[in-house]
């Protein structure tokens, strides 16, 4: 029987790759019995969704203006070299 630490490890890994049949079965049984780890699994999905959307958030992307400025600075640096 998995403890919560092990279950959370499997749940996290399951976000990134396919678990083996037995790992999936063990995780499923644990989640069926454990509210806390079920909540953690929901949080994992939430983090994935938040990350996916934040990609287009201004905190994670250079503005077009900044890109232009940097590109021209790079160009004059290269022309000078």
């Amino acid at each position: 029987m998995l403890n919560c630490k092990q279950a959370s490890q499997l749940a996290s890994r399951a976000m990134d790759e396919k678990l083996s049949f037995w790992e999936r079965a063990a995780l499923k049984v644990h989640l069926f019995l454990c509210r806390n780890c079920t909540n953690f699994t929901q949080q994992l999905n939430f983090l994935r969704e938040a990350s996916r959307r934040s990609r287009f958030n201004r905190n994670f992307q250079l503005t077009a203006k900044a890109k232009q400025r940097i590109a021209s600075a790079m160009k004059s640096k290269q022309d000078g070299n």
Partner: protein
Amino acid sequence: MAPKNNDLNTQTWLEKYGDYLFSYALLKVKDSHLAEDLVQETFLAAITAANSFSSQSSIRTWLTGILKHKISDHFRRQGREVLIDDLVDQNETNSLDIFFKANGGWINKPDAFPSPEAALQQQEFWKIFQQCLAGLKPKQAEVFLAKEIHGMSNADICNDFTLSSTNVWVIMHRARLSLSNCLKINWKN
């Protein structure tokens, strides 16, 4: 091992790595104009130093290394005691003791996240999400940004950061536990 993305064609750097470097810098300096300037300085320094690029590392890792020095210089100019060492994990312990008891049970039980969709619509949530990312350990923040936010594949992460897939699982697990804990404490809907 031959590096991936080993192109010294500086024209493509901005498109390929600009957003990643910017978001990394912003987590550290928390000012978007300053972060833009640091990214620019990084690229200019990289152009000058392109000859000294060692194919031991990937371009992204190399650029991130230059950026870290720029960030550290910035803090030093401000007289702040944040040096390059704070941007690199010294001895990353992967102990999960802050999250789990000796018997493997949760120390802070995860809650059901209250109305996730509503959270994602709120400015305040994104501010806290940003703070929580900034609070991650250096390596966790870098890998989480690259993988989850900038969509880098598992294979590229392993190559680029020279990590085994087991390392990546461990780092991602810890990052997710930390973020989940941080949101639980700071996000009150």
